[in-house]
């Protein structure tokens, strides 16, 4: 495998809140390779968005303390001077945000918003930047790109706006694209179009992608690897097949179990099987449990250490799942090509139930 585009190591984010310090991200480590898509999943409040905003210094400095390392193409984002970070935003990493209705400035034209991003990173004439902007809009599939440049965001639909946001994110050919719930606010057909678009652009440009979502359907469609976040920690990561087909962590299993299964048999009186929810709420980041973050909601609790000790992120595999402490397992799964281990932060991996 070539050198990763992004290498995050022990990322921690602490926010100052009126209710005391909140540990929103607690020691997150992952890598994103060129042309690779890493999906970060987890329910609301698991620290997904904060963890990527922290990378680009987009959290308000007055409230957020970010520690750890995040090396983007050989440079640590977390320690670089603000001026350098500004240069990296755009050409280094582009970002697509959740809500296309609010992530564009309503009082500036689409063209202006694209052009200013292009011109912020190179000595380009207004005319040339405008040409490039139109080209980008064509690339993301906006009809009549020349005319769209003079339009205002409110004149476009949500899906079209999100294409514009993607065009802005791609305008400086970033080596990393971060999509923060980029399709959550869109309806399903538009969602599929946007996902196809990102995949196509990724293939053409070899961009590494971090795709943040809570939609596991999207994950299966787009990701090479999955990272499951809970309580600001990575509780499980691995290839899509490993995590979605053979989830090891009780939380991941709960998450998968709460998906509607269209193939499930319908009862004799037309009754649809009820969805199984994970009971309870994530722990407040101001008051994390001492042991496994999932312990308060965990239906398994097979090991007494769970309550008091944070289980380490350790390699699991189907073979090793027979005994507790999958860390001793012989290594990664073969077959997915990525050659990356399937890891989970749990002592309860042996409870594995193959998903129907």
């Amino acid at each position, binding site marked *: 495998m070539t050198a990763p585009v992004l290498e995050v190591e022990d990322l921690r984010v602490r926010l100052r809140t009126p209710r005391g310090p909140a540990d929103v991200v607690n020691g997150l480590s992952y890598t994103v390779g060129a042309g690779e898509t890493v999906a970060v999943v987890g329910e609301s409040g698991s620290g997904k968005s904060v963890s990527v905003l922290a990378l680009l210094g987009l959290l308000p400095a007055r409230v957020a303390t970010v520690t750890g390392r995040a090396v983007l193409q050989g440079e640590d984002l977390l320690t670089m001077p603000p001026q350098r970070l500004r240069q990296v935003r755009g050409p280094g990493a582009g970002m697509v945000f959740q809500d296309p209705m609010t992530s*564009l400035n309503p009082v500036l034209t689409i063209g202006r918003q694209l052009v200013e991003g292009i011109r912020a990173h190179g000595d380009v004439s207004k005319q040339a930047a405008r040409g490039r902007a139109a080209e980008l809009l064509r690339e993301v599939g906006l009809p009549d790109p020349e005319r769209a440049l003079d339009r205002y965001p409110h004149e476009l639909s949500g899906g079209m706006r999100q294409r514009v946001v993607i065009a802005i994110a791609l305008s400086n050919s970033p080596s990393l694209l971060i999509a923060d719930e980029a399709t959550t606010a869109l309806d399903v057909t538009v969602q599929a179009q946007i996902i196809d678009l990102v995949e196509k652009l990724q293939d053409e440009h070899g961009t590494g992608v971090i795709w943040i979502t809570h939609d596991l359907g999207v994950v299966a469609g787009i990701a090479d690897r999955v990272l499951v976040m809970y309580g600001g920690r990575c509780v499980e990561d691995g290839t899509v097949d490993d995590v979605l087909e053979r989830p090891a962590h009780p939380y991941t299993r709960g998450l998968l179990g709460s998906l509607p299964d269209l193939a499930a048999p319908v009862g004799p009186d037309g009754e649809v099987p009820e969805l199984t929810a994970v009971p309870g709420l994530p722990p407040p980041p101001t008051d994390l449990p001492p042991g496994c973050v999932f312990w308060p909601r965990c239906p398994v609790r097979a090991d007494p250490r769970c309550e008091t000790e944070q289980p380490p992120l350790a390699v699991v595999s189907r073979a090793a799942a027979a005994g507790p402490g999958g860390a001793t397992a012989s290594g990664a799964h073969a077959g997915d090509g990525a050659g990356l281990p399937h890891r989970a932060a749990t002592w309860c991996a042996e409870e594995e139930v193959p998903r129907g």
Partner: protein
Amino acid sequence: MFGLVHLVPGDPVRLALGTRFSQESYDALRERSGLDQPLVEQFFGWFGRALTGDLGVSFRSGETVTSQIAERLPATLTLAFASILVALLIAVPLGTVSALRPRSLVDRVATVISQFGISVPDFWMGIVLILVFAGTLGWLPSGGYVPLTEDPGAWLQRLLMPALVTGVVSGSVITRFVRSSVLEALGADHVRTAQAKGLGTRQVFTWHVLRNALLPLVTVTGVQLAYLLSGVVVVEIVFSWPGLGQLALQAVQARDYPVLQGAILLFALVFLVINLVVDLLYSAIDPRIRR
């Protein structure tokens, strides 16, 4: 409005004639000023003439109302625009800085200053300024008005203090608005998009924060300007500034109906015009309002 003016107790003819007069001269003046006619007829007569630009003749001075207003208008315009300039010079930086650092020392100081400006009576502020700058220091004349065309230096000297007083009052109000609208604009999602593009701090601030905070600023500035144009009576009196506020006040005291009606008509027009201008500015600023 017309009815209200006439409802005020007091007889303008009696006031115009002084303490000693004959019944004949009373009746003559009453007839000459049209006050012997029924109120409804008086109104339509006045209204019809007003449409042609004739606002009548002052009971007190015998001059036409239009000439009296025209005489006062430059002073009022000068003071109003100078005040709004002072107000914006105070409000925009102060409001912006406090929005950028909410709950900081700067913000608290700005809050105290603007609360002070809103709550302190303007006549008091005016008197203090006169005592300090005209009295103790002797730098500025204590009042009066000189047209710009006559002597720009004297014009500025006399304008400085009244403009400062009314400017501080309006500026304090506007500061609060600037603070909250900038604060709101700062929190908008598109600001993060702009940052993520790699724009410089200044560019983000000018085009994605200030630009979006402009709309509420225009609204409140319009309201303040309309208020200033309709005459700031107390400040005009303190600084013997011959503006429309003083004219209206004198007209009330003398029950000088034509002048009072003329002034009120003008104030109403000012509000209409400013509202129109503000609406036009809205659509220039916000494309969502444009059609």
